[in-house]
């Protein structure tokens, strides 16, 4: 009798727990609501919901992707807000950080940037391109862990080479050891250096995208920075450009754009979410 009661109680508990297990989370409900709003053309509503999701710390490449869709659609509508395309570019850049293999996001990002450039060109302002600094470009060739593994392999080769040279008296072992030492030292130095560089950039800067129509680089006091080579024009970062935020203050962010550095208003920059 007791056993029967126990089985019944267990069954009831399981049945009660099933809906909870099957129920979507609050974030999933919000995502679904935003998707629904997108379908009926309520782009601002979808943006508000997806932005709130992001504010709550929910990070998912598909949520970022739909946010990009909402911004693009609003930019195409009569309710377009300045910076919508920049925000779409930021959302797609976020997707690529979270899921580098997302081809649709990569294609969309390139099309959006092309559209921003086209609009700037139509208004008579040629977009200024900026390349990353050499160090950042080198470290970003591969993932940080690739450099770390390279350093580890180099360390192993160097260790084996040194061991052969030191402890094995055979001529062939000495030759193999010398090759191991040379190759291992190069790999270790390069791998460790690039790992350290990538780690430094990861810890000291945050990837971001310009979401304002035009963002003038300022000095620390908030005055526009002059263009390089003595030009009187100020340096302007185009909408949708990738920058790195180096320092955050309540009213200004210090950013690196290519090899240039300057300050921008926080509202002009969207820091990308990472996990």
């Amino acid at each position, binding site marked *: 009798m007791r056993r029967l009661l126990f089985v019944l109680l267990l069954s009831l508990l399981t049945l009660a727990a099933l809906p909870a297990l099957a129920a979507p989370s609050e974030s999933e409900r919000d995502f679904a609501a935003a998707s629904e709003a997108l379908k009926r053309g309520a782009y*601002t509503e979808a943006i508000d919901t997806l932005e*709130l999701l992001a504010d709550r710390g929910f990070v*998912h490449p598909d949520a970022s992707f739909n946010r990009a869709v909402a911004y693009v659609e609003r930019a195409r509508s009569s*309710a377009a807000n300045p910076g919508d395309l920049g925000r779409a570019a930021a959302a797609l850049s976020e997707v690529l950080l979270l899921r580098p293999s997302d081809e649709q996001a990569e294609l969309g990002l390139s099309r959006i940037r092309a559209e921003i450039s*086209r609009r700037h060109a139509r208004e008579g302002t040629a977009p200024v391109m900026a390349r990353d600094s050499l160090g950042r470009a080198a470290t970003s060739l591969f993932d940080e862990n690739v450099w770390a593994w390279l350093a*580890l392999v180099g*360390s192993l080769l160097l*260790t084996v080479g*040194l061991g052969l040279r030191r402890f094995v008296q055979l001529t062939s072992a000495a030759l193999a050891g010398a090759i191991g030492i040379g190759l291992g030292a190069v790999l270790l130095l390069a791998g460790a250096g690039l790992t*350290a560089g990538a780690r430094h950039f990861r810890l000291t800067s945050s990837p971001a995208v310009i979401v304002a129509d035009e963002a003038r680089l300022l000095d620390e006091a908030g005055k526009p920075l002059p263009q390089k080579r003595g030009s009187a024009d100020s340096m302007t970062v185009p909408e949708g450009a990738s920058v790195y935020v180096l320092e955050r203050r309540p009213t200004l962010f210090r950013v690196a754009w290519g090899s240039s550095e300057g300050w921008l208003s926080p509202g002009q920059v969207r820091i990308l979410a990472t996990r």
Partner: protein
Amino acid sequence: MRLAFTAAAALAVLVASPVARALEVKTAVSSQRVGVGESFYVQLVIMSDGQNGNAIGDVRLPLPPGMTASQPSRAPQSQVSIINGQMSQRVGVTLTWTVTANKLGSFRLGPPTATFGGERAQGNPIPVEVVAAGSGSAPQRGRRGFDPFNFFDPFGQGHSPFPPGFNFRSPFDDDAGEEQRPEEPTYPDELRVDKAPDSIAFLRATVTPNQVVVGQQVTLRVFAYGGRGQFSPESPNEPSHADFLTFDTGPDQAKAYLVPISGIRFIGAKLRELPMFPLHAGTLRAGNMKMGFAGRGYPSPPGGGPLLRESNWVDVVVSEPPLRGRPPGYKIGDVGEYKLEATVEPRTIVAGESISVVAKLSGIGNVPFKLQTPESHGVEWLEPALAEKMEVPNGVVQGSRTFSYVVRLTDPGKVDLGELSLPYFDPKRHEYAVARAKLGEIEVKVNPNADKTKLQPKPSDRLAGVLQARDALGPQAVPLRPLSDRTGFWATLLLAPFGVVFAGGALSFAARTREKLRERGASLGAQLEAALREARELAARDTQGSVAAVERALFLAIELKLNLKARAVLKSELGSALIERGLPSARADALSRILQDCDALRFVGAGSGIDPVELSQRASKNVAEMRGDKLSVPS
């Protein structure tokens, strides 16, 4: 009812008399309807700019028959005010008579007169009705809230223009013995300061509240205090408030009070009261207002000009409203308490035409500039025209903004417009709320010219169809923790090769040490030490062994010192050989003697009379001394 009547009667005589250009004269009576035998009070207040002094004389109150009056009491008055940055001071006196009515009827008192500063001041005549005892309306003692003698605040609202430090209490509120009580300070509490930072003059800034959310109102107040009497403010600047949105509260009008601080009577006044709204989160600063104090008691600095003072900074801790419970579409800064109303017209249109939606957002706070408009296919909201009416009653910013939208509807049918909304944070309740206004349905009729009015897609729309929304959240890779963040990565990287190097080095070092030790064991010095030690140890029990060790020690010592293999030299010639090599002759003789004693002990034994212990000690001593001997010829 009686109170209302009395108030009306008293107000009726509150008329300023146009007596003299510089004098301001007011007359008042506590009651115009009194019972026989009851007393009432008549008051004459005279104020002037004080330029002619404040001497009082020739005080008169003409009385009709049937009334008597006491000698008038005199209470000096002083008034300091700062209006539009200009300080002015007025002085005066309040004369109060206690009049007793002894006869029924209607009478006319006065007018009361007096001379003040050499000028004649005359009040107004006062009509009084004396009725049977018990039906009069003499004032109640101790009553609060209504004071006809407080000319700027007859109903007790607390807006007396006179500096409370100068004001005497109304006689109608005082008990008989109350005049003996010390005068209590009646300046506003916001002017209270426990300790004056400067005994001459200072500015003080305060902000309330000092912990708010972005968009919530705070009020910055700046007060000026002068400890050397009357002053006029010179070149006051605006307090700093770069991180705040401020509301202009109209012209500055300051009221001055006497404020005793640490035993000094300061003239204190509020210079600025600024409602402000923080623009972002953080610890934000405001204040630092500068102003010059000009006046007789305020010394000029060495460079000239008025005495400059600046206020302190005040910090406001500003945070963003909580994420918990935040509704979608909430904009940081939308804080307050709002309601939203909307009207829509017309309700029936033809497709392609527009309707008008007028929404009024009103409430307390910096009323937001943007509403959330409902979106759907076929409904196009244009940018609204905006009208606003903002006010700052009692220092609280409030008002309304009216949004006039033009909404174009392109698809025929019954269109539910949805609702306008504004999510906001209510700081009083510490929670979010949404102001909503339902817009209802619009009947959109089919447009016979639909083809002409249909919206044409933009020919240059290059983003159409580039991105397709995703319906569900797909899988996502678990992020890998970077190897370089793992403890031991860098140690592993460097320790492996360096470990091999260290191990090789350690092995080499060990081998070298071993070799050194071995070499050290085979050296002449080591052999000499070993021979001497052996000689000492064997001296007591093995004479032959000890003798052999002594001989060996001596030969080793000679070889070490002179590089001479002494075994190859005849003992008889050893002394001269040692001298030739530069050893002192005494030392050579001593060594030869030891060797001879060794032979004697070896061959004769104990019979030789030589003690092996003494021999080994002598050998040790000579070997040690020989190490320090200087050679006459380099060996």
